[in-house]
């Protein structure tokens, strides 16, 4: 299996799994629509969910996404990690260090209560804060890249504080295998 195929399978599995988790839906839908690595639109049908694994299996991506938590949240205009965020990232780092075969994309997002371009910059700052923290916890920087979506990919758009709070986030996306 070559790298591309494997990546497609992983992404497909994640996309399907995201159906179980409405908060993840936007993230992966966003990645696909934006043509991540040229795979946009090419996955999602007829692909086994097997590689996602059982969330009870601590080595599974499902475990990472659902039990550890793939995201941390930020306060308004801030890229500082909260104590809860650090805890999540500590657990993410342990998992990533135990599963070195995966590459990682750290997405940075902003709520809709700012202007579009500032939010792209702010999302980059948040994604970088997470990346730097994961590096400090031993995750190799070479496995990671960041992308900012600004306010373009809200988890939920309800024009209320409840949604803005969950949209100001970073999402650690297990993006595919490092090796074919």
């Amino acid at each position, binding site marked *: 299996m070559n790298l591309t195929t494997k990546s497609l399978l992983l992404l497909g599995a994640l996309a399907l799994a995201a159906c179980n988790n409405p908060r993840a839906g936007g993230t992966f839908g966003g990645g696909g629509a934006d043509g991540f690595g040229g795979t946009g639109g090419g996955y999602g049908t007829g692909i086994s969910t097997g590689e996602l694994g059982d969330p009870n299996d601590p080595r599974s991506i499902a475990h990472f996404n659902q039990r550890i938590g793939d995201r941390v949240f930020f306060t308004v205009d801030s890229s500082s990690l909260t104590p809860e965020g650090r805890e999540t990232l500590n657990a993410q780092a342990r998992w990533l260090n135990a599963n070195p075969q995966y590459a990682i994309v750290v997405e940075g997002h902003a709520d809709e209560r700012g*202007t579009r371009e500032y939010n792209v910059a702010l999302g980059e700052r948040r994604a970088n804060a997470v990346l730097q923290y994961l590096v400090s916890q031993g995750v190799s920087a070479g496995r990671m890249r960041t992308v900012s979506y600004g306010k373009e990919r809200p988890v939920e758009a*309800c024009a209320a504080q409840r949604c803005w709070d969950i949209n100001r986030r970073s999402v650690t996306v297990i993006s595919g295998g490092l090796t074919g």
Partner: protein
Amino acid sequence: MRRFSQILPLIALTLATVFAGFAPVQAQPLRLQITEGVIDPMPIAVPAFVAEDNGGTRYTDGLARVVAANLTGTGLFREVPPQAHIARITSFDAGIGFADWRAINVQALITGAVSVSGNRMNVKFRVYDVVSGQQLGQGLQFAGTVNDWRRMAHKVSDAVYTRITGEDGYFDSRVVFVAESGPRDNRAKRLAIMDQDGENVEYLTDGRTLVIAPRMSPTGDRVVYTSYESGSPRIVLLNLASGQRQMVGDQPGAMTFSPRFAPDGQSLVYSLARGGNTDLYRMDLRGGQQQQLTNSPAIATAPSFSPDGRFIAFESDRSGTSQIYVMPATGGEARRISFGQGRYSTPVWSPRGDLIAFTKSNAGRFHIGVMRTDGSEERLLTASFLDEGPTWAPNGRVVMFTREAQGGDPSLFSVDITGRNLRRVPTQGPASDPAWGPLRP
């Protein structure tokens, strides 16, 4: 990107005076001083244009309606509708019975004529000051193709606007914007271009790739925007005539966004984010050389040149919150110019050079505002749940922006710099990020 080839080629509209021997323009009694703000719109009449041949008959009403819509859309004029007219204009060259127009309180009368030969069209017009019974300036005619009949009506509108207000018009211009569709958490965004009145929409991208914040070049021949087609924000330069697209300014491991053209169209200023920091860069579009303009641990984005090319206004949160700064276009010391309550974003220099339009957020509300280029005389033009991203009409009298109602879809609005005449710009679906291009030649 399949439709690029269909973008209208630039069609030269020829402009010539009709009856060059007409009496010279005299001291003009009909004058709207719009800098003072107009409370009572000037009543105008725009009767159907006169068909000078059979081919022209199908355009007589349309031309007059577009002219009337343009002028009344400024808020400076109101139309006395054709049903109220007493006189009929049946000949472009016959004398005007001014008493019939005075009787219905018309102050400015616009008459026109149209003839068609094959796919070529000729449109003429005159403006009359009804009160003094004088023609205002000389008649003009425009020649072009029938497909461009709306453009000719826009040309007439621009000329009439200029005659009466003494300022340049903005009707024969286009707006590039982002057409949105699909669910809010996974929006499809397509780059699109339309006439300033919302007509003649053309899609420039297909919606599979997220695109944001386009800007038009000073001559309207190119668009620069931010695209996620590589999986990360990158600047793309699009040639409207050829449809050719080119990624520009990308550097390994960096995100690039928020581009804007220099007034000479030969360079871009933009944001480059890397390692948690966003600074401004400038790139020469001919040679590709890149120059870093800011070097601050804070965010610097949304840059905009002064029309003389000497300065760049931009947004930075180096003070702790977003504020507007001005620096020399080559970089160097930046001076903060916004000091009011709240956060200030997206400064855009007026094409006249006298004002900077901006987005302000304060106390849970968003505003479009203008201030002088030293930050003085701040004036908020709008207030809503979310207003952002002003762009100037080519004459510097009107700004267009994105408005998003609470829980609703975004759409385009325009407002006069006096704060009057807030209007929704018609688009077929949700729309955002307008960028107004220049008056077309």
